[in-house]
Structures are given as structure tokens and as C-alpha cells.
């Protein structure tokens, strides 16, 4: 098993023109590790996620799963390898937590098959792992943002894939729930052997928690452990220097005081 990017260039295209957003990437996502994707707005974080998920086609190169281009892997097989948490809202939030999590079992169902004992076990396990017991029959619209995010992770978990890809899982969450979610992701890596890739704006938390970081800047991307990226000075060039600067001693981003100019 391996998830790799080979000469991958991502962006949008239609019949007339293509617009490159980021790349080329040439890297292998480390197995059973937590990898954070960072970069400022518009750097291509979500575009990368959607290219992995096949919602977007790559402009050049490929996303490889086990050395095979992901475009060539049949839909149902891909759904058993990669699961996702997106930022999109549901067209119906009138489903219960249990129903939402149960939809993670879709790739294992035929039209006629009722959920098997195995399905029921997976769903239950995902609910317990994400601490959603007691909320099974609660409707999604009645959940708090933190619970909602956990329910979506439970849905992905029920899909039983070795890779989990999460787009901005921590937006809208307060510090308490961010911490909870980070420890949940780490638990998934350590206890369930998942390989997790997530995008985030919270670079400070990524530096202290993620095993690897993929940093996207306008013309280059950097991939390494947080410590090495600090040594390389990547965080210093992530944002315009005159407004935001990085303090390596505290791993903090600081805003420059406009008055001190």
C-alpha cells in the first residue's frame, strides 16, 4: 500500500483553458502517519484533496495508489481504499447520526443487501471510537459543530479504508474541540493504523502534532517533518514577511505591529 504523487500538477481545467494551482508534487505519503497540508487561502489545499478524491482531474502527472494511477482504479475499489471528510454541507441534515455513519458502509452493499452483522459492528465501533454513543438517533442538524465533525469522521471510519483524507476538519471548532479532534486523529493513526492526510489553517497545531507537513506556497511545495521544515525556514516564507513572521523558538506566528513601521 502506498499513496504517492508523481509529477502531480493540480488545478482547474475546462475545454478552453486550464489554470494551474499548485505542483508539481513528487512525494510519497508516509504510511500510518499524520500528515498535515498547510498553505494560505487559495494555495491549493482543497484542490489537492479533490484531486485525490477524483472530484477533479489532475492537470498533469498522477495520484498513485499502489503504483497504479487512481484514475484507472475502479470506483468501488477506490471507495474501499480512501475515505474522506469534506467541508460541504449535506443536502439533508434530517438524517440521524446512525444513518450518516451507516452510509460509510455503502461500498460494501449491493442494492438488495441488508446491512450485515459485520456492517452493524463497524458502524457501532466507529460511533464508540468517536465518542458519539447516546447520539445515535440524534439528527445531524441538532448536533454541535464538534459533534458534527466527529460524526463525519465516524462515517469515514465505518468505510474501513487504510487512508483517510480530511479537508479542514478543524475549522469552526474552539480550542477544546480542536484538541479533541487532533487526539482523535492521532488515536486513529496509532490504534487503527490509519494513514491520515488533513488540511488546516492552524499551522502552529500542525507543527506540534503532525508527523509530516506538506507546505504549499505560490511557486513551490515543501514536504518534511515539522522540525526539518523549521530548520529549512519554510515557515518564514509562508506569509508576506511584512505582516506575519514566524518565531521558531516558540513555533508561533506573530503579526507585526503596524505602528512600529
Amino acid at each position: 500500500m502506498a499513496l504517492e504523487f508523481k509529477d502531480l500538477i493540480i488545478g482547474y481545467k475546462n475545454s478552453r483553458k486550464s489554470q494551474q494551482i499548485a505542483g508539481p508534487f513528487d512525494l510519497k505519503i508516509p504510511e500510518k502517519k499524520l500528515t498535515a497540508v498547510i498553505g494560505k487561502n487559495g494555495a491549493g489545499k482543497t484542490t489537492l484533496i479533490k484531486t485525490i478524491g477524483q472530484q477533479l482531474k489532475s492537470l498533469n502527472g498522477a495520484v498513485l495508489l499502489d503504483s497504479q494511477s487512481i484514475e484507472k482504479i475502479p470506483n468501488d475499489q477506490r471507495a474501499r481504499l480512501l475515505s474522506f471528510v469534506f467541508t460541504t454541507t449535506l443536502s439533508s441534515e434530517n438524517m440521524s447520526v446512525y444513518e450518516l455513519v451507516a452510509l460509510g458502509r455503502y461500498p460494501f452493499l449491493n442494492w438488495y443487501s441488508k446491512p450485515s452483522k459485520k456492517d452493524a459492528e463497524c458502524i457501532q465501533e466507529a460511533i464508540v471510537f468517536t465518542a458519539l454513543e447516546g447520539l445515535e438517533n440524534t439528527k445531524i442538524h441538532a448536533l454541535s459543530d464538534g459533534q458534527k465533525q466527529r460524526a463525519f469522521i465516524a462515517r469515514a471510519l465505518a468505510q474501513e479504508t487504510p487512508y483517510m483524507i480530511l479537508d479542514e476538519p478543524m475549522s469552526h471548532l474552539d480550542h477544546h474541540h480542536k484538541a479533541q479532534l487532533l487526539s482523535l486523529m492521532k488515536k486513529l493513526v496509532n490504534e487503527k493504523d490509519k494513514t491520515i492526510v488533513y488540511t488546516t489553517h492552524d499551522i502552529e497545531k500542525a507543527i506540534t502534532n503532525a508527523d509530516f507537513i506538506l507546505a504549499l506556497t505560490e511557486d513551490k511545495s515543501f514536504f518534511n517533518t515539522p522540525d526539518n521544515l523549521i530548520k529549512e525556514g519554510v515557515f518564514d516564507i509562508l506569509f508576506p514577511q511584512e505582516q506575519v513572521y514566524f518565531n521558531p523558538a516558540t513555533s508561533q506566528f506573530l503579526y507585526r505591529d503596524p505602528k512600529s513601521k
Partner: protein
Amino acid sequence: MTRPINTKRKIRYLLLGVLFLMAFLINISFGSVEISIKTILESVFGPTTHNNPLDYIIHHYRIPKAITAVVVGAGLSISGLLMQTLFKNPLAGPYVLGISSGASLGAALYIMGAAALGAFLPQWLGNWSTTIAASIGSFSVLFIVATVATRIKNTMALLIIGLMFGSLSSALVSILAFFSSKESLQKFVFWTYGNLGNLSFTDIGILGLFVSIGSLVSILNTNVLNAMLLGNDYAISLGISLKKTSLTILIATGLIAGSITAFVGPIAFLGLAVPHICRLVWNTSNHKILIPTSLLMGAIFMLISDSIAQLPGSANVLPINAITALFGSPIVIWLLVRKKQIQL
């Protein structure tokens, strides 16, 4: 945890079943001549036919009409549900694709522009002519929309294209109406009122076949429809091919709504309203519940609407198209005000 839900489910279907039987019997009993339930049961289950005029009315007029109401109500509701889920839009109904406008255009061309189209429809078709003209109209629109659908990724664009086809057809119908004679205009207006009472058992068989195929396709796609509620990104991530699914749903809806419009006229409203009633009453978005309840509820709704349209105790029959909305709108409004929120 699962047991009480199962019992609840059984009670729900039992209730709907009883309601359905009652509505069916009442529908047969109401009309220009009121027939008692006892007479109906005797006539249907009795040892031999008594050869009285009531028997004739029951077997040749009332029962076919009641069966038509069941097929039409169930079919429109299920196609409305399919469109709302596919387009992720609570305002979608069986006719958003322009299918009914296409059928209207076909019927209008035949009824009001007979001189132009008459050559293509031979005389021996008789009663079937309007049906065939309407079918050609609705299936042409369906064909165009399905072709466009294979090229377009965005379902919202498809929705607007359907609406545009609707406007185009209505414009053409208006022009036809402007130039047509008083008699043919009246005939066309009557067609638009909808009529459940004109179908022979052969017609019902054909209509039933189309509606059954469409309903079967929906039932087979229960899991897919549920997954569609997650939105396109999630649907793709679960291995669903959006193009294939959209096309399947479009064709199923087209078969149902197209054939219904061709046979009984453009009966609106029901397809939009019944899925919402089911969602609100059972407080769910799960198609495992919504598909069977919409089928049953649609049939019940149509039977009741038709019973009201018969104006019990009078020889007049009101346009069914008006009654469905007159009877249904207050129910939907009441449910919405009470529940205070709408979700797909």
C-alpha cells in the same frame, strides 16, 4: 434498540394499508350514483355477477378509475421524490424536466394544430391519438434532457434547462391556442384539467407497466439515493458514478411522469407535495422509508382527491388537477408551520 423501531415500522405500514383500502372503497363508492360499500364488496367478491346496472358501473367505470388513481398517485409521488433527491432541491417535482410541457405541446399540436399533425396520426388510432401525441412530446423532451445530462456535470444547469424547455413549450402552446378554434381550444383546456376516468384496462396495463418499471428502478437504487443526500463530493468518494446515476434517475422519472401525463393529462402538485408530507410525518430523509411511504401516500392522496372531485351527490365532476392542489396545499402548509423546518 431496534425492536421498538421495527414495531413502529409495522404499525406505520399497517395504518397506511388500512387507510389505502378505505380510500379505495370510498373512491369506488362516490360518484354521480352513490354505491354502498356493501354493494361494492358483494359485486367484487360475491358468487356471481347479478347483472344489475350497478355491477356494470363498478366493473367498467369505477374500478378502472380507482386503479388509475392508485397508479397515477403512486407514480407521481415517487418521481417527485427522485427529482428532489437528484437535484437536491425541495421545489423539484416530476415536471421540472419539462416533461409535462413536452406532453402538453404534443397534445396541443394534435388537438389544436390537427391540420399540421393529423397526417401523421392515422384515424384508426381513435381515442389513443392524444395519448400518443402527448407521449411523443414528453419523450422527445426527455430524450433531449437526457442527452444534455450526459454532457453537463452540474445538476443545477440541468434544472434550468428543464425549466427553459417548459417555457419554450408553453410559449408554443400559447401561440397555437391563439390561432385555434373555440372548440379545439376547449378540448385542449379539458385535457389540461386531467382525467382519470378515460382509461381502459389495456391503457391501465401499459401505464402500470411504465410506472412499475420506474418504481422498481427507484427501489433498486435506495442505497444510492441515500448516499446522494451526502452531496456530490461524498457520493463520488463512495464510488458512485454521478453520470450513470443521474441518467438512471432521469430515465425512471421520465418513464413514470411521461406516461402518466400522456394518459391522464398534466396532473401537477402531487409529485411535489407527497414526498414532503412523508418526510414531515415520519421525520426522516431515509429512502428506505420514503420510497414505500411515498408510493402508498401518493395513491391514498389521489384516491381521496378523486373522491372529492366527484362532488358526492351531484352529477358534476370537478377538474382533478384543481382538487389535488386545493386539498393538498393546506396539509403541506400546516405540516411546515407545525414542524418549523424543511429538509430534504
